[in-house]
């Protein structure tokens, strides 16, 4: 079926209606949803003009665009220019671990092995930050954020050690731990064994990205954004796992009082009472939230604007449409309105699903003859609701 979908005949370069977030985050585009975009821009503007750490709760229904926002705003070029002119912004995106065995350990490894980090990059980051510092100065700075002399020493070694043998021992030290003999060779007294240590290491790496300068001068630091997706999966943690992770997040927030923004993406059916948020995120985290963004379902006009902006983005439509065709082509305006009007949940994902299914149906019917046919109200009425809301890949 996919092979029969000739997007060229719709004056499109490909399928604009993705159901799952794109793998290639460089090509993520923002369509419509202007209030949300404005809200994010305000948060980044605050970040550019103040050193204070932000903790942002992004909440809303499944398919509301939270993951999409993390991918889009995770690209520095997509941030408001007045922000990037003032400060460098680094973004790291991770997902809450799915495995429930040892989530704090999995979270730690996922962070270090993240596509934007990895141990080689972590080493580079630490190495860059200690350049120009004496051993004593660096150890003092590391000790402050890591709260442990041994961890501070490990950071110093990782950033400065140039013997390949010791470097080869430091990677396992950070990821899985070393034998006693190897620890002795490194001159470090103990492994990273406690959950608290792991969260401190995460904070330490983030602090190195931010910069070790003791001042609050924006020009001397970068802003680091950590996006944690699928926070709703905390519900699958037992009380011990839940406590460990929420206290770990609090530890990171408290160790990084400046130049850090933590975005927590969490699917929720609808806005809840404060107490309910505490149940879902833990008091340790909820007390530290500075901003909250609600990804509400779209109104009909917002949905129309969303589809319009999406299909006319140059990535998907780089040539003008033939005269007489509406900008919503392959949909007639009224037909598109009909499609989005009776959606049970008017989220970007469900709008995408409907639009994709309607086009798919039309291709299957051989309904399109380039520029001469359109999905109109009459055609939409012909499509069964089940076909419109069918799950697609």
């Amino acid at each position: 079926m996919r092979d029969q979908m000739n997007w060229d005949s719709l004056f499109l370069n490909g399928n604009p209606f993705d159901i799952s977030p794109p793998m290639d985050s460089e090509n993520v585009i923002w369509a419509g949803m202007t209030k949300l975009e404005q809200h994010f821009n305000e948060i980044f503007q605050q970040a550019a003009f103040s050193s204070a750490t932000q903790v942002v709760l992004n909440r809303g229904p499944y398919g509301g665009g939270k993951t999409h926002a993390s991918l889009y705003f995770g690209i520095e070029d997509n941030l408001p220019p007045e922000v990037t002119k003032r400060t460098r912004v680094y973004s790291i995106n991770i997902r809450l671990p799915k495995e429930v065995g040892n989530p704090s350990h999995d979270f730690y490894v996922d962070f270090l092995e993240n596509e934007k980090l990895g141990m080689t990059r972590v080493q580079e980051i630490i190495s860059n930050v200690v350049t120009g510092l004496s051993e004593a100065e660096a150890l003092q700075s590391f000790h402050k954020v890591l709260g442990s002399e041994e961890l501070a020493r490990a950071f110093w070694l990782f950033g400065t050690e140039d013997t390949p043998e010791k470097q080869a021992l430091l990677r396992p030290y950070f990821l899985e731990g070393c034998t006693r003999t190897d620890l002795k060779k490194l001159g470090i007294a103990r492994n990273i064994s406690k959950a608290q240590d792991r969260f401190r290491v995460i904070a330490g790496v983030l602090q190195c990205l931010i910069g070790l300068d003791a001042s609050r001068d924006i020009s001397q630091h970068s802003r680091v954004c950590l996006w944690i997706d699928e926070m709703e999966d905390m519900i699958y943690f037992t009380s011990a796992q839940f406590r460990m992770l929420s206290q770990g997040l609090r530890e990171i927030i408290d160790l990084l009082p400046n130049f850090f923004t933590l975005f927590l993406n969490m699917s929720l059916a609808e806005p809840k009472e404060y107490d309910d948020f505490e149940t879902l995120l833990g008091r340790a985290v909820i007390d530290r939230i500075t901003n909250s963004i609600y990804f509400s379902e779209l109104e009909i006009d917002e949905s129309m604007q969303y589809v319009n902006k999406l299909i006319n983005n140059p990535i998907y439509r780089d040539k003008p449409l033939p005269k007489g065709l509406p900008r919503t082509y392959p949909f007639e305006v009224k037909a598109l309105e009909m499609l989005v009007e009776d959606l049970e949940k008017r989220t970007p994902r469900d709008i995408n699903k409907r639009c994709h299914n309607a086009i798919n149906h039309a291709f299957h019917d051989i309904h399109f003859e380039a520029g001469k046919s359109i999905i109109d109200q009459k055609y939409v009425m012909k499509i069964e609701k089940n076909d419109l809301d069918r799950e697609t890949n």
Partner: protein
Amino acid sequence: MKPVLCVVDTNSLIHMRDIRVARKELGLWLWREFTVKVSDKIIEEVRNPRRHRPSYDVQRKCTESNWRFQNQIDKLEGAFLQSFYPNLDGDKNKGELHNCCVALEAILTNKHHQVIFLTNELNITDEKKNGFIYRIFDTFPIGRIWSSLHFILYLFLRHRREFSFAEAKNALRDVNSRMRGEAVSAQERLITFNNKLKQINQTLLQLQNI
């Protein structure tokens, strides 16, 4: 007075495994609070080697609590269950189905007046999903369907001096995390039961002398 009968399903016992409240294993509290009975199928299931299963003590208690049917199970299935669950062939949902027969026979034989049907199977007890266990108990007024979360609230209510509010909150989270389901539904479930726990706690604080 005829004691309340608690008919227990395997998954509710599995979800309560390794959880201790008021210094005792949560699952074993069932036998302290109620007369517990289970069908043969449940005994088979709790002994079944699998990744998670109830403790040995719970398995033993289940074996001791086997319900001896006075009627032939085929006859009970045909007359009682067929209209709610047309395809009775095979093993699917057999534990719950036979437990329903235990519940009905316990009332019909006048051994018990009411039944607590303990199961954590969300789909088959859900009114919105027209679950067959829901429909059976909606038609036959023989008792109430509970999940392990209801049982935790009941224990908190009964043993408030040994069972702290914090311990009850943790037990609710532990069991809820094992009941799975969609994250948003699991969130709503935990919030609902946490709010019930708070309300019970507030009431109990005002009635400390009782």
